[in-house]
């Protein structure tokens, strides 16, 4: 349904969305965050969270060595712990990641479209996307044009996402809304729907490169959006909070939100991801603690 809408139709549907009550949304997220997940549920939640991680490195200092090290960790994080969902890198490191992960089942995700600001001409963003896919990216994490969005040009944002979707053919497309720059919940809801109408396979909160990254209320709101979008169109879209989720306790709060907002259908790495780097080691430490009954400390998980 998404792809057959014109830009004007999509924009007017999005503009007509009902508002979000900020106080109520935050209260609901805070309420869900009080769930107590212990013992065998915690063990399951930890393994599920590990399997949902897009293990990420997005630094100017990234090298093939760093990416290989991360890939090895993603495939076999610790003992019998599950692999992560993907390794997420800049486009120039996709060949390295693809070679390191070939045949492992761990996906290669690449940011593209002039990440993180996206402030480069569209043809360059499209070329960036095409080259990442050609180099072996299974998944593309694009950024939306926040400048166009905030200036009210929703049609342009819609067309750009559709163009990137076409350029990323063969890969799953995650659309980064950069919610920290959209600021209001109303705009997060609008951007979520716009991205879904344009064909996003995932909607993702953040680049991790601005002051405010993933928060529980924003992610809950995006979960409500994918839930409602499927009810309307039959099309299921995934959700990826990214940036700022560093420990097990926080990750479990997100899983509780999926559990009580979206249910089983989204409780797998096919439909939910964490964009994170340091989260993995905290999950592994908690995993060891559950197995052995005591904390082992950071020297017992690898630095990659």
């Amino acid at each position: 349904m998404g792809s057959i809408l014109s830009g004007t139709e999509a924009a007017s549907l999005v503009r007509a969305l009902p508002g979000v009550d900020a106080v109520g949304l935050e209260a609901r997220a805070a309420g869900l965050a009080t769930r107590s997940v212990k013992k065998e549920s915690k063990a399951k939640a930890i393994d599920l969270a590990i399997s949902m991680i897009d293990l990420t490195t997005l630094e100017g200092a990234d090298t093939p060595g760093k990416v290989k090290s991360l890939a090895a960790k993603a495939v076999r994080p610790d003992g019998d712990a599950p692999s992560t969902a993907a390794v997420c890198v800049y486009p120039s490191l996709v060949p390295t990641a693809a070679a390191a992960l070939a045949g492992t089942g761990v996906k290669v995700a690449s940011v593209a479209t002039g990440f993180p600001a996206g402030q480069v001409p569209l043809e360059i963003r499209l070329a960036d996307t095409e080259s990442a896919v050609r180099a072996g990216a299974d998944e593309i994490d694009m950024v939306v044009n926040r400048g166009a969005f905030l200036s009210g040009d929703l049609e342009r944002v819609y067309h750009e996402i559709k163009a990137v979707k076409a350029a990323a053919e063969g890969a799953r497309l995650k659309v980064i809304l950069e919610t920290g720059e959209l600021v209001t919940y109303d705009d997060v809801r609008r951007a979520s729907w716009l991205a879904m109408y344009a064909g996003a396979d995932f909607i993702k909160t953040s680049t991790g490169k601005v002051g405010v990254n993933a928060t529980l209320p924003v992610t809950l709101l995006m979960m409500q959006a994918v839930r409602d979008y499927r009810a309307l169109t039959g099309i299921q879209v995934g959700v990826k909070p990214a940036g700022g989720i560093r420990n097990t306790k926080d990750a479990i709060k997100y899983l509780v939100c999926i559990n009580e907002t979206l249910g089983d259908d989204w409780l797998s790495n096919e439909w939910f991801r964490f964009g994170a780097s340091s989260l993995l080691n905290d999950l592994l430490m908690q995993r060891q603690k559950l197995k052995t009954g005591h904390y082992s400390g950071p020297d017992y998980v690898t630095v990659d």
Partner: protein
Amino acid sequence: MFEYAPAPESVRPQIKEHYGLFIDGRFTDAADGAVFKSLNPSTEEILFTVAEAGEADVRAAVAAARRAQEAVWGPMSGTERGKYLFRIARLLQERAREFAVAESLDNGKPIKETRDFDVPTAAQHFFYHAGWADKLAFAVPGFAGQGPGGADPKPLGVVGQVIPWNFPILMLAWKIAPALACGNTVVLKPAETTPLTALMFAELCQEADLPPGVVNILPGAGATGSALVNSPVDKVAFTGSTAVGRAIAKAVAGSKKKVTLELGGKAANIVFDDAAIDQAVEGIVNGIFFNQGHVCCAGSRLLVQESVAEEVLARLKERVSTLRVGDPLDKNTDIGAINSAEQLARITGLAKVGEEEGADVWQPACDLPERGFWFRPTVFTGVQQSMRIAQEEIFGPVLSVLTFRTPDEAISKANNTPYGLSAGVWTEKGSKILWAAERLRAGVVWANTFNQFDAASPFGGLKESGYGREGGRQGLEAYLDV
């Protein structure tokens, strides 16, 4: 679905096998030796036995309160009274988890609520009123500086207080904190089914070195309450049913006793078509399923605009299906036990009437524990204004859903009740909130939220929901001779 393993609260308060009456700073048995039992409503096990106060005990307690008021508490400076109240507030905070578990055991409500709402809010009431104790001249408009030598307004004297079982420690705080801050002494009767936290509070008063007789706690049933109302107190403060409130008003009529009553309600929660629907659904759930619906100001009537009714109901049912009903001490429990067999029978009876009168009943599929008093969260749709479930207070997890076409119709349906305690309005439009709040005949109108309480905010009803305010500056006037 990913299941949450049981997460029982591990703190266990020291509950005695037997509690006495708390009179003049000491625990003592009833003059006639009467005793009753308190049950854990989630298991039907006996938690403890407790002395039942009779007329002689009421006389003794009121006399003790009179002595304390005249000799110690009344003459004491506001600053000193404030110190005691601050001490009580701090002790309550320090022992918060213990009180939370005890409240959950005796009442059946989930630990999540006692831990995050009942006990912290009770402590807040003591902190708030402790601050007022030495500023009473500013509590009454026009009073400051006018009294002789800048004197404070005077207390009433001895106050008889009768509280309900739905928020035992919180209602105790609402009653005792302002009374003591103003210089009164109190004789309080906790509800028959939930005396535990009031008795633990009595122990806490001993720990705080509160002068004997300032606070007296008399467990008992209706007869004890009646004896207290008819005793020589200067004021009666009551929270509970409208029927009992009416009897109290009759009993004190023609006497010099002042009275405040906080009674029943049948609040309308109005959802307009321009509301933020997901958050409105949360508010509906919070409005009626908070504390098993044992809330006088519960949003028990949902008035939803017909154009969005289908969507709201679909979302509401989906949400209610995620509520976790069960062991009140499990930290993940959303809905606990019904407080008593008697209350369960009343809820069950009214729900049956709802079905007989032609409303459509819906309940989520959820397992209930075998023992104890339980009722599934229930939504009645197709409810008409003429049905009993739209008129009578059910005081349980039962929501009656009605629809309206225009804002005027919403207001007239909302006001079409003898009660007038609270109401809710859900719309993204500020002007509509103000328009509705002006027209709703209710003591509290919540906008885009529900069941919010604060010590600084006066609470109370209109019409048959009672009179007098509790909390805030307005609440102090009910305990001052002005």
